[in-house]
């Protein structure tokens, strides 16, 4: 297997470069066909997302693939060559595993990339550009991604404000089903948090805003109820989660108000999320039992802690990938070499039988015992001839040049190329 990977990512190229190299999905099929033809690739797939454009090809030299990329996008080589990375064999395999496991993502552990890789693989498969090598590689990559996800915590905790809010709400209420959220002041961030909460089971949404029309508009989105701003304090007792993001210069919710709320709710907990700057909610209310208040900095702190934890987990993920790359390379190299050994043995054995048959007439006077000795002698000779090349090939199986060596042996002994056996 001769694997080449050429690409740019958010780590090596600014968006201006990435967008020029992108392959739109409707043109992907044609691009794959062009790639197969122009780069003389045996197998190929293209991954094109907003953060990366990568071509994985089996067979061609990276030079041909690079040339294809320049030609296809009609870009001068010098304008992008600094941003391109070219990886081969083991390094290419490692890169594919890391990308699929979301270790190379802008946000480590984000789950979308796996879906994007799967989609790219599906398109290439439909276009008929996937063969045994890439199929084996990608199947393993998906398994590695799954392993990394389940054995490390890299995608465990929330790393966005709105998702952190959901996660905290879950730590207070466990099940959000049947819970009520109130949005005070319609803002993008507040709506986003409410949307996440709603998706996670929150059943009713109350919206209040200084301009009532805006409240009605937002309430419609969430199939909730709009409440005039003057009356929101009459309804706030119903809310288990309160998201506040008004532009008010003073506190909208005071400690006295929170104390009254908790009394009316018979101590049922309330989670206040204050994403306004300047703040809407008196920070002192966090001292009240069963009241939990997080402002924008607190949420950011949670996210930072989670991120730190993700980075720690990413180290463990890299170790998993190290092992996987080694195992995969060995398997691929053995896969290149083993069929050659088998065919070589079979070829020589056939040659021996043919020769014995050819001489059968001349040997007709021989007793069966003597025939057995001739059989033994020829077999022993064949084995002696084969001993050295086979031992060498077995040793080379663990080497990068294994495939190359096997190819030479094939040429020397005139063995026809056949598909390597499938399966592990």
């Amino acid at each position: 297997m001769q694997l080449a990977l050429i690409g740019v990512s958010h780590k090596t190229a600014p968006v201006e470069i990435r967008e020029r190299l992108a392959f739109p999905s409707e043109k992907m099929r044609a691009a794959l066909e062009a790639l197969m033809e122009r780069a003389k690739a045996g197998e190929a797939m293209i991954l094109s997302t907003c953060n990366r454009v990568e071509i994985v090809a089996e067979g061609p030299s990276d030079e041909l693939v690079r040339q294809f990329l320049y030609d296809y996008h009609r870009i001068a080589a010098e304008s992008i060559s600094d941003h391109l990375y070219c990886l081969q064999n083991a390094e290419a395999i490692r890169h594919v595993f890391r990308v699929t496991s979301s270790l190379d993502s802008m946000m480590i552990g984000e789950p979308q990339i796996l879906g994007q890789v799967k989609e790219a693989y599906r398109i290439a498969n439909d276009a008929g550009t996937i063969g045994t090598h890439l199929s084996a590689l990608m199947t393993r990559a998906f398994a590695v991604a799954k392993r990394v996800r389940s054995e490390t915590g890299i995608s465990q905790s929330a790393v966005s404000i709105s998702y952190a809010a959901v996660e905290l709400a879950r730590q207070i209420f466990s099940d959000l089903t049947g819970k009520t959220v109130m949005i005070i002041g319609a803002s993008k961030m507040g709506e986003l948090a409410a949307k996440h909460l709603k998706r996670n089971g929150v059943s009713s949404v109350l919206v209040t805003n200084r301009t009532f029309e805006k409240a009605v508009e937002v309430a419609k989105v969430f199939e909730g109820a709009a409440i005039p701003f003057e009356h929101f304090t009459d309804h706030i007792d119903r809310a288990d989660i309160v998201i506040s993001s008004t532009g008010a210069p003073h506190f909208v919710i005071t400690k006295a108000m929170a104390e009254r709320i908790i009394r009316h709710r018979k101590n049922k907990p309330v989670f206040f999320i204050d994403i306004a700057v300047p703040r809407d909610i008196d920070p002192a209310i966090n001292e009240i039992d069963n009241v939990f208040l997080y402002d924008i900095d607190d949420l950011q702190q949670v996210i930072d802690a989670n991120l730190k934890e993700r980075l720690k987990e990413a180290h463990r993920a890299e170790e998993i990938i190290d092992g996987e790359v080694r195992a995969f390379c060995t398997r691929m190299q053995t896969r290149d070499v083993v069929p050659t050994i088998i065919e070589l043995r079979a070829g020589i054995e056939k040659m021996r039988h043919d020769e014995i048959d050819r001489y059968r007439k001349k040997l007709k006077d021989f007793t069966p015992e003597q025939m057995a000795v001739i059989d033994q002698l020829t077999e022993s000779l064949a084995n002696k001839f084969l001993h050295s090349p086979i031992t060498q090939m077995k040793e080379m199986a663990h080497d990068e040049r294994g495939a190359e060596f096997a190819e030479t042996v094939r040429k020397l002994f005139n063995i026809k190329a056949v598909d390597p056996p499938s399966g592990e």
Partner: protein
Amino acid sequence: MLALLRLALGLYFLGFVHSVLTIIRKKETFLVPAAIAMAAGFICQAASIGIQAYGIQSFPLTRLSESFSFFAALAVPVFFTVYWKYRIPSLSVFAFPMIFLMAFMANIGYDKTTDRPAILMSNWLYIHIPLVILGYVALFIAFSAAILYLIQERELKSKNPRMFYHRFPSLEVCDDLAYKSLAIGFPLMTLGMISGVLWAHNANLGPQWEFDTNILLTFFTWLIYLLLICYRLIAGWRGKKAAYLAIVGFVGVLVTFVGANYYGSVFHSFTQ
């Protein structure tokens, strides 16, 4: 049957190790093997109790160590029931060491002699002690849930929740578990006490039994729990205050249960 009891203790020790490792590494890596060890320990212990019961032709509950043993043996299936209902792995951090400790004390106090104090040989024994101990197991679960609640609450209030909090149940679940186990434990304890009173009355223990130290302490513990139930039902207490009171109550349970031998108690000394 000490061999079986010791084997059970060894298996429970694995559960104890799991708890220590979980606290150090903040990860429940060995929960499954530990749970299997606990279940195997339970089978050994149940067999040990069964064989002993056959030997003395009555259920071994008259000694303090036997009560500890009974507590440990009950706590294992109770833990599994709660786990099945609530899926709280972190509960094992409290339950397993407690079970180990109780089995350990049962081992120390193990006495294979078969003579039993005549005063305790009554059918009331089989009502009074199981009720009380089952009640204590339930109250122990309430205590563990209360501690989980307080840790989780502190994490959330600190606004700097560490990784640990992901592995803890939500506040609502902790509070719910604490309340439900209180709602089961308290009536059991009450019935246990009533059966004790009836037993004392029937056995003509004389006029002074009410002033037995242990009985008085148990009564105080019972009052704490009564207070907690009332606060929860009437004043709508929940969360932190309720958790504190559940912990105080269980300290009372431990004092009366473990300390039963030590304050010159006449009827609860188990060792007459």
